[in-house]
């Protein structure tokens, strides 16, 4: 067969397969991310379909997937929402970091991956999946609930924390010294401040550069500027993802909404490719040895996220059932944990087992998160009933 024909058939098979997996996932009420990862594990190295002809394409497509994931994360919240969110939820945000980054960091150190591995694992267990959580809250009709703004403001804080964390991680992965790491912190703090000020005061100019009444022109301009900024950031060793993310924050108002609407399908396409490629590059046989650690991390970080949400909701005067819902909603981890693991493994600075651990962890948490959010009300109700019975009989 002609090589183009083979490549088209392979790509078609991959996308069609992912489509079927996605349909199954939403039907049973979980995120498709774990199924994409499993799809990736199944393809390629020793898998069902060898993907030799399209490796170059899948590689660049997965890079674009990361850029789009971060660009849309930046677009999700306007600069003013970020600032008010920071003011309102910084205490809950700090608790979130302490409770949820620590288990990952400890696991990284215990597995002997050193401070760099600990930093990467801290990010993997810290960051909730805002995509999964927003979808689950909408599906369960909880957007009108009183605890939902609490959940969202924790996600906003995590968003800002990512803007700080990613440049630091990139710098550390590139092997800079402790001082170099500190200067990376300084540079990233300065960059975020500048971007926030630009977005708050001159956001309309940034938006005006990419804006266009014509949908086609608009799409090309937004996508083009995102890839340009990402490429330049990557050239400056700041990581492509961070550049796209900061561009997303700088674009605001109705331009941001239009860009989100237009780029969402593209992001879904390329992000799916990213998850598949990440799965492809992870050797399935490396997962069983780390499965125990992954399960332990999953249990611990489920409890710590529930505690975070519980505490944050309690501060806003929400009743116990609402606190439990807030905590359970935050449990899901997904795309950004994989982005962090992807950056780490690509740099080659940390043991490749980290990819296996992150894969197993996200497989568990992306399934477990939505399930927890769903079953929390009956479970709390049941526990309460049991307690009520016990106090009644005592």
């Amino acid at each position, binding site marked *: 067969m002609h090589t183009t024909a083979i490549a088209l058939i392979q790509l078609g098979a991959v996308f069609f397969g992912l489509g079927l997996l996605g349909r199954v996932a939403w039907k049973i009420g979980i995120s498709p991310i774990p199924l994409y990862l499993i799809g990736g594990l199944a393809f390629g190295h020793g898998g069902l379909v060898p993907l030799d002809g399209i490796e170059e394409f899948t590689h660049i497509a997965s890079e674009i997937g990361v850029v789009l994931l971060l660009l849309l994360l930046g677009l*999700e*919240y306007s600069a003013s*929402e970020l600032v*008010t*969110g920071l003011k309102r939820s910084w205490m809950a945000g700090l608790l979130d970091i302490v409770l949820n980054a620590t288990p990952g960091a400890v696991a990284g150190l215990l597995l002997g991956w050193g401070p760099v591995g600990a930093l990467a694992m801290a990010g993997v267990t810290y960051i909730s999946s*805002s995509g999964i959580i*927003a979808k689950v809250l909408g599906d369960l*009709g*909880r*957007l*009108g*609930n*009183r*605890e*939902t*703004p609490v959940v*969202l*403001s924790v*996600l*906003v804080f995590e968003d800002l924390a990512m803007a700080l964390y990613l440049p630091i991680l990139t710098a550390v992965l590139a092997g800079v010294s402790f001082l170099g790491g500190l200067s990376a912190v300084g540079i990233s703090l300065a960059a975020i401040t500048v971007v926030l000020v630009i977005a708050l005061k001159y956001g309309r100019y940034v938006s005006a550069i990419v804006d266009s009444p014509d949908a086609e022109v608009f799409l090309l301009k937004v996508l083009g500027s995102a890839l340009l900024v990402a490429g330049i950031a990557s050239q400056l060793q700041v990581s492509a993802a961070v550049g796209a993310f900061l561009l997303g924050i700088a674009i605001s108002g109705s331009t941001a*909404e239009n860009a989100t*609407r237009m780029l969402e399908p593209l992001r879904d396409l390329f992000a799916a490719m990213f998850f598949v490629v990440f799965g492809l590059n992870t050797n399935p046989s490396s997962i069983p040895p780390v499965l125990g650690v992954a399960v332990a991390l999953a249990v611990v970080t489920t409890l710590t996220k529930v505690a975070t949400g519980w505490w944050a909701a309690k501060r806003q005067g*929400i*009743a116990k*059932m*609402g606190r439990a*819902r807030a905590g359970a909603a935050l449990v899901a981890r997904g795309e950004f944990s994989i982005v962090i693991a992807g950056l780490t493994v690509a740099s080659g600075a940390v043991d490749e087992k980290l990819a296996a651990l992150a894969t197993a962890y996200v497989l568990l948490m992306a399934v477990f998160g939505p399930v927890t959010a769903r079953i929390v009300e009956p479970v709390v109700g049941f526990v309460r009933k049991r307690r009520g019975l016990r106090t009644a009989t005592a």
Partner: protein
Amino acid sequence: MNVEVTPLPGIGTRQDFMIRADRRIGVITYRDGKFELIVSKTDDPDACMASIPLTPAEAGTLAGLLGAPQLVAHLANQHSEVTGIDTKQFPIVPGSHFDGRELGDTQLRTRTGASIVAVVRAGTVHPSPRPDFVFAGGDLVVVVGTSDGLSSSAEILGGG
């Protein structure tokens, strides 16, 4: 009424208030302009028993349904000094005879002596509509007249 406005980062705004029946009711306005009507649970006011998605047109119609009685009550109050004059509202049922037809086509004044003083559409009141006003399904027609005039108006607007 103390309406609470809560921003929902990344989603939109929630506006709600407690009603006397100890429920929280309100509206979520999404960034893309969709609406959702929310009603809280009785046993857990933090949670919602229903969140009903509404298109802008549906939300407007609902607002009209809730707002029109007030307009009618207001008009009825004004006409209360004149004995024998009353105010009533009639819906234009979608797909019915006058859906898409002009107000003049009803010949209401000639046939019944009653007058159309306002049309409520999608939450907004169109006062003193002209004969070339085109009705649409879901409109509420506010009519002033004698009780006989009003009952014949009901027949005309209901079926033509």
